[in-house]
Every structure is written in structure tokens, then in C-alpha cells.
């Protein structure tokens, strides 16, 4: 097969941001996650937990709480504003000030008509959810301390509010407090500190469950206002609670990094009386668990250690299926690294800035397994801080290394880079075409003469670049009426084709010579996570979130023979069980039969000339092949050559 030189780059210092809040939409099976930097991410639980959308953060926006109302997503934050998100254009749709100081919590009623906000000034504020906006309706009786947590009774007539040292129950009609539940402080030294009720849950049978800073999970009778049971679960704080839809299971997240499950069961077998019994403890986090979601089959948790953990409840899923395995989502499901192949440059995208690096060079030759002597070390050429409050949502580096572009939700910036010996000149291109303002994805053509930018309604703006200026050429529009954003762009090596993929799972191919739509690939039910066009055959290769691989001939406008063969045989079960998506595809210039692709933990070379692995074949067979004598290797070889030595962000 051959030897490859691998540049092992470990200086991309990307640090994901801590998870602050979470909201699960049971209807669409979408999980919204808010991070400490204000970014909001949408994961699709019905499509292999793929991170389908990212709304970049903003300096002033600290999201403290998230809430779905039907398919609309709202957040409240310490800046005191309610934000509704535009999930089609991946930016805030509008923000409304609540005038109550920092917002600690936000919660909608089951009917989806009202939003209740818990504010620093001690008020619960009610906003009516209208078709295009939210409108302030009224304040509840103002309380002395801040309102930290809220939960509506499913009937929509009562609201429980967690505060300092107490829980208040409000009548949602009158806005008057009907009950006051006093929460005991911690013992010892913490006796003098106010106890914070970080989370409350109001169940149909009027049970109120609270989690507080004294480490207690308490069960209250919401009708009489009496304490039924206290479970001391941690020495520190219980930060988050989430109840299953059938209200028979409850999870609590603590600042020790544990998630503790309680279940409503009878403590003695055969007895009718059910009570909340502590059942399981999960320890998958190293730090505070700030946010929780209890889905039908799993507990989803996130917090300070930045990772999203999906912990299946083994009594709810079939054993030894993909659903039953623990998932940790650590890094974004998209590439934050751009490589200028010809120039040997790497562009790293951070929310706050961009870094441009030149790769090092090696000396001499070596045998497999060797590390070569690094003659020139890698060098950071540019660190470019973004302008404005909005965080960077996408970036691109031209293949020649001469152009660099990034975008936020409000503006696009394009830079011309010039290299004279050891000096680098960077010039901002002023006067960009006015269409180029809010884009989701950027991509340069292979000859660096054009910039493609995906815009609203799945359209792509084409801009021509020359030494001095950039001019608007055309807007490519799909025939479909999709309003979803394009999240993948790929311009073919020969400059003839542009492929786009949007979050409606549509893949469109444009002919750049004619600036016209060439064809639309048959829609497959799972998200495309990576697309690429082969430089010689002009075949489009697509990998989806469910790990399926398709090859589509642009000439014949049909799936290739190889693709059909692969579908007929089916992919190997171990391939399908991988839990990170393929985020990049490229090709081997020395061998046109090679497709190179990677996910977070491996890269794979698919040799289309070799037989496909069958169900019983050993998929990860590199060790075996190494150990058998060369003439026998061909007998054991198959098309998937997988190397798991590296964690991979990008390959070229």
C-alpha cells in the first residue's frame, strides 16, 4: 500500500467552552446546549447525536438558561435579555430586555403560550409567546431574594420558584405566592451561608423536587408545602435536576461531577406505596455538572469539563446495541482547521481569533515508525484577533495561502496575505460586495480566484478575487425551497464544480462554468458530514452522520458502481459503530483509487481497487497485515485501511 509522511501537529490549542445550560426537545429529539462563551449548539439525537447547528457566541451574551417552545428556542442570560434564535440563519433573531437584572432561569408552560423568567431583582416575569416575538405580560409578587430556578406545574396553573433559603409556589393566574417552603441550610460552617435552590421540578402529582447548594435533593408535598424526604447526595452543590417524561425517574447533577439517579419505586417489593429512591450514581465528569437532560433512554449531562455525556439507562435500551454505549462528545463535529496544501500552511479557527501556521520541514528519510529530524520548526505567522462582539463562525484559507477570510454573524472580513522572504504582509480588503455580510461557510476555489460564501436559503454567493479588489459575480440558488443553511462547501480541483450540503440533507452540485445548478444528489435521510469531489473522476464522495458512504458520478448523475456495491454489501458493523463523524475527505494524488477520510480518532484510506470487507472480515487489520509475510498480505487485504494512531482534526 505504501508509506506516508505524517505531520503530527499538537499546537492547535483549542479549548472547548464549559457547558452552561441544556434543553431537550422531545418532539424533534434535538438537544440545545449553551456554552459559557455564549455559543448555542443543536444536537440531533435521532441522527447519531450529530451536532447539526452551531450559533456562535457573543462577548456580552452569557446564556444561563435555555428553553424550547415548540420548535422555537429561547435563552435568558446574565445580561438581562431574552433571546430567540433564528435556527435557519444561525444567529439571534431578536433580543428583548426583561428589565429585572440578570436572568437566572427561563421556563415555558406545557401549552407553549407563556415564558416565565426568574430575575435577580426577585421577580418572576411572565412573557407571552406570540408568533413573531415575546411580549411582557406581568410581574409576580416581588420576592426578597433572586429567583434562581423555576418549574411550571404541568397544568400550567402553578409555578415553583427556587430562591435563597426557600422555594415559593406561585399561582400563575394571580401571580400571588401560595406556599413558602423553607430549605434548611447546610450544617457546620455553611450554616451561616444562604442555601441556594439551584433547581426545582414540579411534578403532575404536585410533588416538588429541589436541588440546593447544601448538597440536598429534597422531595416536597406541593399541596401542603411539607418536606417529605431529604437525600443528602453530596458535600457540595446539587446544581441541576431533570425528570423523565413519565415522571418515574429523576437525575441530579452535582459539583462533584456525579449524576445521581432517583426512581419512583416501592421500597419494599409488592408494596403499593411508591417513593423516590436513590438508585444509581454515574461519574463521567471531572468537574461540576451544570446541565442535565433526561431523555427516554438516556441521561445527558454537561458542565465545566466541557464534554457532553450521553449515558444510556441500561433498563431502557437493548443491551449491546449502539444505543447502549456511553457517548462522550468532546470536540465539535466540524473542522476548525483549514490547510493550504500548496503553501504548507495551516489556519486554526478559535472563537476569538485565527492563527496561521507554517508547517515544519524534515530532513532525510526514515523507515516506518520513525520520527524524522525536524529541520525547520513550525512557525506561527499570524495571530489575528477578530473585530466586534460576535465570535467567529467560519474561516477559510486559499490553497495558495494568499487569501484568508472569516465571518461572524454580522460581517465578513477578507485579507490578502503576502510573503516576502521572512516577512508577511497582511492587508484587509476593504469594500466587500454588500451581499457578503452574513455567511455560514466560506471556501476558496482551487486556483484562489474565487471565494464562495453560503448565505440564507441555501444560496451561495460567488465573488471574484484579483490583486486589488473583489467583485460580486453571481448568487447560486438551489431549485428546492429549503430555508436551511449550507454547512458544507466543496470546490473541485479543476474549478468546474461546487458542491453544497445543507441541514435539510440536500446536496446540490453547481456548474461553475455556466454558474448554474448541475444536479441534486438524491436526498439521504442522514446528515452529510463531509463531501468532496474527486480531482480526476469528478465523482462526489459523501459521508453521512450514520457513517454511510456514497459515491456519486457527476457526469452520469447517478451513484457509481462502487457505491452500489458498497450499499449492497453493507458497511462493516465496526465501521458503523464509530461514534464520531467523518469530518473531512481528501484524495491521494499518487493513487486515484484512494479516498482518504478521517473522524476524531482515526484516519482511513479506502482503496477502491481492493475487495470490500465483509461482515466476518477483521476490519482493523493493519496489525495482522504487518505480521504476515508479504505474499500473504493480499489474501487478508481489504479496502478499508484504518490507522488509529492519531487524533485527527484535518488531513490533506
Amino acid at each position, binding site marked *: *500500500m*505504501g*508509506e*506516508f*509522511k*505524517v*505531520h*503530527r*501537529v*499538537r*499546537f492547535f490549542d483549542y479549548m472547548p467552552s464549559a457547558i452552561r445550560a441544556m434543553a431537550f426537545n422531545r418532539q424533534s429529539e434535538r438537544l440545545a446546549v449553551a456554552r459559557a462563551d455564549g455559543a448555542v449548539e443543536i444536537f440531533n439525537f435521532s441522527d447519531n447525536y450529530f451536532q447539526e447547528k452551531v450559533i456562535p457566541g457573543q462577548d456580552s451574551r452569557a446564556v444561563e438558561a435555555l428553553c424550547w417552545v415548540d420548535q422555537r428556542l429561547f435563552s435568558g442570560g446574565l445580561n438581562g435579555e431574552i433571546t430567540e434564535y433564528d435556527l435557519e440563519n444561525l444567529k439571534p433573531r431578536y433580543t428583548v430586555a426583561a428589565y429585572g437584572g440578570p436572568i437566572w432561569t427561563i421556563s415555558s408552560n406545557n401549552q407553549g403560550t407563556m415564558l416565565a423568567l426568574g430575575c435577580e431583582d426577585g421577580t418572576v416575569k411572565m412573557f407571552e409567546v406570540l408568533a413573531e416575538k415575546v411580549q411582557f405580560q406581568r410581574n409576580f409578587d416581588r420576592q426578597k431574594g433572586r429567583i434562581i430556578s423555576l418549574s411550571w406545574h404541568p397544568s400550567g396553573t402553578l409555578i415553583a420558584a427556587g430562591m435563597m433559603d426557600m422555594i415559593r409556589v406561585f399561582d400563575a393566574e394571580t401571580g400571588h405566592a401560595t406556599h413558602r417552603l423553607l430549605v434548611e441550610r447546610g*450544617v*457546620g460552617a455553611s*450554616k451561616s451561608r444562604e442555601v441556594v435552590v439551584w433547581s426545582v421540578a414540579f411534578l403532575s402529582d404536585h410533588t416538588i423536587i429541589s436541588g440546593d447548594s447544601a448538597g440536598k435533593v429534597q422531595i416536597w408535598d406541593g399541596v401542603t408545602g411539607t418536606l417529605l*424526604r*431529604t437525600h443528602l447526595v453530596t458535600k457540595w452543590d446539587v446544581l441541576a435536576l431533570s425528570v423523565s417524561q413519565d415522571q418515574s425517574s429523576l437525575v441530579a447533577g452535582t459539583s462533584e461531577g456525579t449524576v445521581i439517579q432517583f426512581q419512583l419505586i416501592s421500597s419494599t417489593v409488592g408494596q403499593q406505596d411508591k417513593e423516590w429512591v436513590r438508585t444509581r450514581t454515574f461519574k463521567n465528569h471531572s468537574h461540576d455538572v451544570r446541565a442535565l437532560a433526561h431523555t427516554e433512554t438516556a441521561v445527558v449531562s454537561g458542565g465545566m469539563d466541557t464534554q457532553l455525556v450521553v449515558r444510556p439507562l441500561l433498563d431502557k435500551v437493548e443491551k449491546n446495541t449502539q444505543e447502549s454505549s456511553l457517548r462522550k462528545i468532546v470536540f465539535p463535529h466540524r473542522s476548525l482547521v483549514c490547510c493550504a496544501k500548496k503553501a504548507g500552511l495551516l489556519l486554526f479557527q478559535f472563537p476569538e481569533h485565527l492563527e496561521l501556521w507554517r508547517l*515544519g520541514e*524534515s530532513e532525510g528519510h*526514515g*523507515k*516506518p*515508525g*520513525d*520520527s*524524522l529530524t*525536524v529541520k525547520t*520548526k*513550525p512557525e506561527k505567522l499570524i495571530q489575528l484577533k477578530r473585530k466586534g462582539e460576535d465570535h467567529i463562525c467560519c474561516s477559510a484559507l486559499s490553497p495558495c495561502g494568499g487569501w484568508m477570510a472569516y465571518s461572524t454573524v454580522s460581517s465578513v472580513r477578507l485579507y490578502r496575505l503576502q510573503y516576502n522572504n521572512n516577512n508577511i504582509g497582511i492587508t484587509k480588503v476593504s469594500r466587500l460586495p454588500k451581499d457578503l455580510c452574513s455567511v455560514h461557510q466560506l471556501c476558496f476555489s482551487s486556483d484562489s480566484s474565487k471565494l464562495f460564501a453560503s448565505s440564507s436559503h441555501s444560496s451561495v454567493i460567488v465573488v471574484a478575487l484579483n490583486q486589488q479588489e473583489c467583485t460580486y459575480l453571481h448568487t447560486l440558488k438551489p431549485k428546492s425551497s429549503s430555508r436551511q443553511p449550507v454547512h458544507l462547501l466543496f470546490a473541485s480541483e479543476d474549478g468546474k464544480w461546487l458542491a453544497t450540503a445543507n441541514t435539510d440533507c440536500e446536496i446540490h452540485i453547481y456548474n461553475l462554468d455556466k454558474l448554474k445548478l448541475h444536479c441534486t444528489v438524491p436526498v439521504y435521510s442522514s446528515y452529510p458530514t463531509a463531501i468532496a469531489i474527486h480531482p480526476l473522476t469528478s465523482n462526489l464522495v459523501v459521508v453521512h452522520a450514520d457513517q454511510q458512504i456514497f459515491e456519486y458520478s457527476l457526469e452520469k448523475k447517478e451513484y457509481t458502481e462502487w457505491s452500489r456495491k458498497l450499499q449492497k454489501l453493507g458497511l462493516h458493523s465496526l465501521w458503523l459503530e464509530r461514534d464520531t463523524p467523518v469530518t473531512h475527505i481528501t484524495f491521494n494524488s499518487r493513487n486515484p483509487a484512494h479516498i482518504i477520510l478521517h473522524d476524531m480518532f482515526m484516519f482511513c*484510506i479506502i482503496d477502491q481497487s481492493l475487495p470490500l470487507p465483509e461482515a466476518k472480515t477483521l476490519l482493523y487489520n*493493519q496489525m495482522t*497485515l*504487518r505480521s504476515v509475510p508479504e505474499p500473504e*498480505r493480499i489474501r487478508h*487485504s481489504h479496502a478499508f*485501511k484504518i*490507522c488509529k*494512531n492519531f487524533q485527527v482534526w484535518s488531513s490533506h
Partner: protein
Amino acid sequence: MAALYEGYTLCGLVPAQNLSHSGIQGIEQERDSDHVVVTDSTRSVTLYKVSDQKPLGSWTVKQGQSLVCSAVFNSQTKEYVAVSDNRVIRIWKEEDILLDKAFKATVSSDVWRVHCVHGGEPVVLFQRGAVRLLDSLLSAPQQPIEEILVQEEAIRWSTNIVAETQQFVIFTTEQKGDHFLYLQRLNPNTLQRYRLEREEPGLGPLSFSASYRDKHIHLLYLYPNGHVYQSVVSVRGLGTEEGTQALPLPRSLLLSLPVGEGLLEAASAMVLDEAHVAVVGVPHPSAGAGKDFLCIWNTNFQTLQAGKEMAGKIYGQLWCYSNKLFIPHGKTLSVIPFVCPKSSLASALGKLKQAKTEVLSIMANQINFTLLSMQRMSRKTQSTPSLTTDQVLELIKTAPVEDVEKEVEGLLSRSDIQDLQPSVGQLVSVLVSRSLTDPAFYTPSTLAQLVHTQCLCHSVCPDLVLLALEKKDYFLCQLCLQFFPDIPEAVTCACLKAFIRNEVLQTAYSDNFLLPHLKDLSSQHVVLFLQYLQFLYLKYSQDAFPQMHGLRSPSLTQIMDWVCLVLDAHFTVLVMTPEAKGLLLNLHSFVKSQVRLVSELGKIEGSLQELNKMKVNKDVGQYSIEIIELF
């Protein structure tokens, strides 16, 4: 296991400024277990409904007056009795609002306390040791009161107990560092004086607690060094040697509580039942110093059963009424419900039956159910009138074996096991007692069937296993060993003597309790038993899959444990026995091989840890260019 539940606050306290005293003089039960009367250390008496955590009424003596002792409730007359200013006895009812207007009587000597057991008549104990029933005292309040105590002797603690029909006042006194116990019986009056054994010089008892059971008064007392002693006095022998001569009071050390550094200052121990003691003010053995705990100890097994940290200062006061502990701490009086179920060694040590055995018993149970339901079907055709449980119980006492078997089986097949649960115990007890008295009567199949219901345990029918052993019914013994979770060690050993089976090896035991009983085995038995263990050991060491032998076989470690135990108990005897020589040599080689195995495992562990380190230490820099080869 005994357990302490989540507590709640009954009321706030106003402790003394230097926190030397909780501000509470006493708590007495009122009309029922949910009402108590709390007397504070100065002037007021308050009635609380415990479950509501709220006061129902309160009475206060005038400023300048003070209450001497805690007020009591006379449930016969529905009156409260208290004593103010040493000599004034006050009696009032709940509807009386002002204490000053209620009944008052002044007596001629200083009162120590008024006692009243629930349903009994109030008794007045005077500071100089005399005792009077309240009624007879009030008939002539100024009657002369005799002095029982000598000069410099003073009462330290007192209580009141009803033993069968006899009422007793018990009090302890101190005189120049010596402690005495007085047992005053009323109607007819007798007085007995005992001298408590001296503890270390300078140490006097911190607390006393008295209880009555099995015709004996049990006195429990705690010393500052953590020692809890029990003295038992029979109520029968009293009155024969009346006199002021102090008898020595024998004592036994019940518990030696860990006190940490220094001595206990404010602590008390209270009897909860025959096996459990509540202790307050003694550090928790696994918590650090400086924390105050309420603990329940099991005195049979010397195990800590439950503990609860109490916030704030503990005053060493503790009361207990109907499964609720009342404890002042910090600035609150808390009520803490508790349970003390009957204990077995297995539950006390947390060593319960193995899961394996449980699975099996469930299986056996299912099979049993199938059997029963089949019987039920076959019985349906019979039309004889069926007897009730009570009738069957009566029948067992007299009827011949065949009838008894028929009716008990009939009863079992007719009713659901769940419904029968309470009567299974009765049935077995009656069957066993008949079998013990009437040697001709024995119903092995019926007993086996009853044991199979799994509604039984050893405590319900303590004589069953011994009866089965006596009748050489090894099958029944085996069933009992299999299904009873609480067989005492002595009985286990008795079974061991009778036969050697797997079931014995798998029952829960504790080394300390087993060793003395094991010593009872004869040397022939020991050799036979060791041979059997050797056989099991060999069988296991040859077979890589011990699970294949079936679910009921003991594990290799269980076998080794028993080998060690038996050797410990009988080593000297075995060394002298010529037949045992070969056996001992073989066992020696087992031990050697085990030691070798463990040391090899240790080495492997070391290597594995190295492997782990190697993985971590493989460090790659920030950047490298590597050659890889794909095949």
C-alpha cells in the same frame, strides 16, 4: 439493621449562657405516644403534639418560683403533677389556664422528683430518699418524712418501673465518691441497697438507664471512659434481706465505646431494646473529633448500627418514647424516629446470604409453587369440608400424624402463600412443640413443605433445626440451612457435627463467634471434615471452571476459610493425632501453593502497573514528522 430516620425539630431551646445546660429539665409522655410534656429548667411546662411539631398548651409558675423536677402526667386522672420551690406540689388539668389558681399542697420535706409510669399512680421521691405514693402523701401533706440517706449522700438519678404488677422506684446516690443503687418496691414496701463497683479513681457514672425484662431489672450505665456496664437485679429475691447493708452489685461490660482523646463530658447511653443501645455525646468511630453524634449500637455483636451527626452542642440528655428519640442539641430539641428490628449476626455484620443461593431459592420457590398449584388442582375434586387455620392449629395439638399432615397440606394448597404468611410461623411452632413433647409425633414432609414456603426464619421457630437434628431428618436440616437467614453459630455447629454439607460452608458466620463452638467437635469429626475440605479443594484446583459443579458448591475461598478455622480450633489436637499427620502435610502443601500463587499474582500486578506507566510516559512533543506504513 437498626436505623435512624430523618429528624425534625420539636421546639427551640434557651440553653444556659455557658452552654452547660440545655434548658430542659425533662420530657415525659402524656396521653399517648404522640404527646409529650416538656419541662424547662426554670418555670414552664409545655404540652406538645409531636407529629405536628406544635405546642398545645403551656403553664408557667410565677416569677421568683421555680420548678424542681419535670412535670408528669397522671393518665388515670388526666392531671399534671409538678413540684415548685422544693416543697409545693401542684396538680392541674389541661383546661386550667392559670397554674396559680390550681391545686397546691405543701409537704414537710424537700422533694427530689415525682415519677409516674404511663397508666400508673404518681410516686414522690424525697431528697433524703423516702418514697410516698402521691395519694397517700396528699391525704396528710404535713406527715413526717423519714431520712433514708446518710449524711453527705445525695441522689444523682432516679426512675420508676413497673415489673409485672409491682411498682419500683430506682435511684442512685453518691457518697464521697462511692455510688449506690437503691431499689424501692412499693406495696409491700421493701428497700434494697447495692454498692456499684468502682471504676478508675475519680470516674463516676455519666448516665443511667433502667429497663425491665424477663423478671429482671437491667441497669445500664456509662462512664466517662466510654465503658458501658450492665447490672442485672432479679425482682424475685427482693425483700428477703431487707436492710441498709449495701450488697455488691455485679456488673458486666456491655460495650467499650471509642472516646478518642480525653474523657466524655456530657454523654448518655439509653437502652432501646434487649440488643440495642442509643448513645449520645460519644464520638463516631469513623468521624473526626469535634463532631457530636447520636448512635445506635448493637450490644450483642458490638457493632455500630446507625449514626447521625447532631449540629451544635450536645448536652448529654436523651429521652425515648415509642420509637422516637428526643435529643436537645445546640438551640433545638429534635425528634428522631428510629427502628431496631430483631437482629441476626448476618445482618449485623452485613454478611448476608450469597446471591447465588438466593437465585437458587427463588427457583426452588417457583418449583414449589408449581407443585402446590398442581396439588391444588388435584384437591379441587375433593369435597370434604375444609378447616380454618385456627381449627388446624387446634387439631395439631391432639390429632394423629396422618390427620395433621392431611389438614396442614390441605390448608397450604387451599390458600395463597402470601395470605398464609402469618400463620405459617404458628403452624410450625405448634407442630414443633407437639413433636418435642410427644416423641411418637413427627411430620417431616409437612415441616419441609412449611420451610419451603420461605415465610420462616430461625427466630420464628428456634427449636425446629434442633428437632430435625434430633430426629436425624437431615433433609429438613438442609432446607433450614438453605432458607433461614439467621441461624446462630451454635446451631450451625450442631448441624456440622451431625453432617457435613455444602450448605454449612456457605452459611454466614463470624470467626470470633464460631471458634469456641468449633472446639466442641471431636478429633474424628475434625479429621473427617478436613478430609472432605481437602477433597473439595483438590476438585477445584484441578478444574478451571468451578461454576460447572452446580450452583450450590462453596467457593474456593470459603473452603480455605473453613480449613483455616478448623485448623485454628484444633491444631494442637491434630498434631498429636497420628491419623491426621498425612492430612496436615497435604494441607501444608496447599498453603504453600496458595502462598506461591499469591506471590506470583503480586509479581504480575507489578508488571501490569509498569505497563500502565509505560503507556503514560510515551510523550510526543508539540510537533513531529513521522513515517507510517499502511498495508
